[in-house]
């Protein structure tokens, strides 16, 4: 359980850091989100 929590925290930190610091990823994430919203709203 503890191992899984640490892994989860690591995934959260790593994902956040990638989106925040690597140029272009945030834009790509927004595109995916936009697509998901469009699919759900149809």
């Amino acid at each position: 359980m503890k191992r899984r929590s640490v892994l989860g925290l690591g995934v959260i930190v790593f994902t956040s850091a990638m989106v925040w610091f690597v140029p272009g990823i945030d834009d790509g994430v927004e595109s995916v989100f936009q697509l998901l919203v469009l699919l759900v709203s149809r």
Partner: protein
Amino acid sequence: MLWFKRLSVVGFWLVLVLSVAVITAAVKQRFEDGPNRVFSGGALIQGALYQGREPDWSFVNEIATIELQLLQPEQSRRVWVASVSGRLFVWSGYMNSFMGKLWKQWPLQAERDNRAVVRIDGKRYKRQLVRVREGAVLDDLTAIINEKYPSRTSRAAVESGAVWVYELAPRSEPTEMVQGARP
């Protein structure tokens, strides 16, 4: 049954990564100069501040969206826009629904402080949001909205409060106190 468990685990991690990525991207955008496509942005900083005569806003009927920023809080978002008789209008739908009230915060914020800045084609304009609740202008405005966007709205929807329409009117700045002058 094992495959279902494995699929659930993979699904959980995918949803976690996607959720974290979306939240991070949305928060990051709040620190940027203006909104992106969906996520709200920070204050509109770049772009010359327009000074001059009141423009004829008819040209916005050829523009898909504009950037709208309130002064309190200093957040900006991309909104649909239309012009009637040279006047500038923006609006917000779903205002009677629960989801709409959660999702559309800027009209409620504008009720508290209606000062706004809009950026159109890289030029910034100081405006104030004046709510339009009724009137014949709504017939013309909703006709333009329905023609321009994949939207079906009406004067009745505006008058019922389901759609909040605002005119982006020129901002009437409070008279600045001249040093040494008596009030």
